[in-house]
């Protein structure tokens, strides 16, 4: 059964419509990547799912219609969203950023264990635990943003271009952690990326978005083999 079901989704800002009818589903425990160029509507898709933009159509999470829900309500249902630009709390310490991600959880011992798990996943954050988030490098901020989302124990994690602005080595480090999350905790992922190669390596299914419409969907291996995708996104 699919955990996230998007049907006929139209979304945009003010009078401008960016998405013109998107159909997409992500299976429980699965991972889907949405590939596309700048401005194709990748970020808008994630924002529409968590209620950040004007939207119509139908978005269902675990069978619940969330199309008209507020952002904080959708988050409380179990949807984590690592936004574009990371959205770290820059005046707060790394530790407080992590704890802020777990504000809705009441069990102190579990939260403490959650912090330990995050630091195990991203050891670099442990070294900077008392630094302010503003003082971190871009890669560390991305790791912090992911860890913070994990602190809320989401069932579905939305990731908005985690590779953006990162050096290849750091990108590899971030995606290695995402691989671990998939295999070890079975977390369901929806990832939007420009870096098709590294994204397709992580996911089961993929879709290509162009000018607000999905032009191609299928298993990741099939998408990776598609001539158009190879030319446009893989540079071969």
């Amino acid at each position, binding site marked *: 059964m699919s955990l996230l079901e998007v049907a006929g989704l139209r979304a945009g800002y003010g009078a401008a419509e960016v998405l013109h009818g998107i159909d997409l589903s992500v299976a429980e425990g699965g991972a889907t990547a949405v590939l596309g160029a700048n401005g194709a509507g990748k970020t808008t898709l994630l924002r529409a799912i968590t209620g950040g933009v004007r939207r119509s159509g139908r978005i269902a999470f675990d069978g619940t219609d969330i199309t008209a829900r507020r952002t904080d309500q959708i988050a409380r249902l179990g949807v984590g969203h690592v936004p574009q630009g990371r*959205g770290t709390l820059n*005046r707060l310490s790394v530790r407080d950023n992590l704890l*802020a991600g777990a504000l809705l959880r009441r069990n102190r011992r579990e939260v403490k264990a959650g912090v330990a798990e995050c630091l195990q996943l991203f050891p670099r954050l442990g070294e900077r635990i008392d630094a302010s988030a*503003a003082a971190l490098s871009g890669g560390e901020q991305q790791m912090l943003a992911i860890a913070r989302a994990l602190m809320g124990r989401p069932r579905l994690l939305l990731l908005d271009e985690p590779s953006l602005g990162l050096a290849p080595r750091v990108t590899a480090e971030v995606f290695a952690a995402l691989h671990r999350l998939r295999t070890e905790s079975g977390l369901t992922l929806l990832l939007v990326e420009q870096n098709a190669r590294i994204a397709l390596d992580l996911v089961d299914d993929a879709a290509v978005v162009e000018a607000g419409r999905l032009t191609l969907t299928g298993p990741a291996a099939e998408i990776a083999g598609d001539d158009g995708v190879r030319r446009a996104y893989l540079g071969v």
Partner: protein
Amino acid sequence: MIAVQQIVDGITAGSIYAALALALVLVYRSTGLVNFAQGQMAAVSVYIGWSLVETGLPVWLAVLLTLLISLVIGALTERLLIRRFEGQEPLVAIVATVAVLICFNGLINLVWGGSVRAFPSLFPDDVVSFLGARATWGDVGTVAVLAGTVVILQLFFLRTRLGLALRTAADNPSSARLLGLPVGSLLLVGWGLAAVLGGLAGCLVAPSVPLQPNMMDTILVYALAAAVLGGLDSPLGAVVAAWLIGIVETVAGANIDVIGSDLRIAVPLVLLALILLVRPQGLFGHRDVERL
């Protein structure tokens, strides 16, 4: 000659500024706004306290009730007015706080009239002497209440989940929503708590000044200077800065003939300008670093 007495007077005056500055810091920390109506809202609290005392309630109970009512007034102000400007240009919301200032000033004139009244003290009138200086129990009580408030506020912000939630919402409202926090309700809490602090400042200063609708205006100027000087997001910074302003103002007023009593209000502003030249983030503030 700087007498101990001047220092003591400075700290007493500074403690009043500090209480209102803490309210400003609280609003800033929880909503990212400077509330220019904070002093006027405090004046409303004082008038409510006065009316409660007039009904025959003991002063301490009247003040306690006043603080509770202030909580509601602060929360309602956010819910009914400031909420509309949430997520827009901060300047728009700040101008809205000026409108709140004018409304509450008019409200006081409407309900209580402009005539001057007196507010009883929470503390006995006796005088205590120490180190050659003299202070009333009111002065000592003011400093003690303030010190207690700072400790509680620091613990609240740094050690409680609600405190962390308020800091999160102020730092990045859209991230806070993605983490499941009801940002609107948090802003409401921030404004309510700030109004309580403002009301506390008002009730502390009220016994020593005549009650009139603009009674908190001058204090707001000092409090704003203290809040900015302290770094806007640091309660401890606001208090230290408020004491510094109180002391410098008293000492300068008493020892520099040109300043006297007329130019005293210029002292905090000059001090503010000088310190911000050297430390733009204030004494205890964090320098905002943005990675692009």
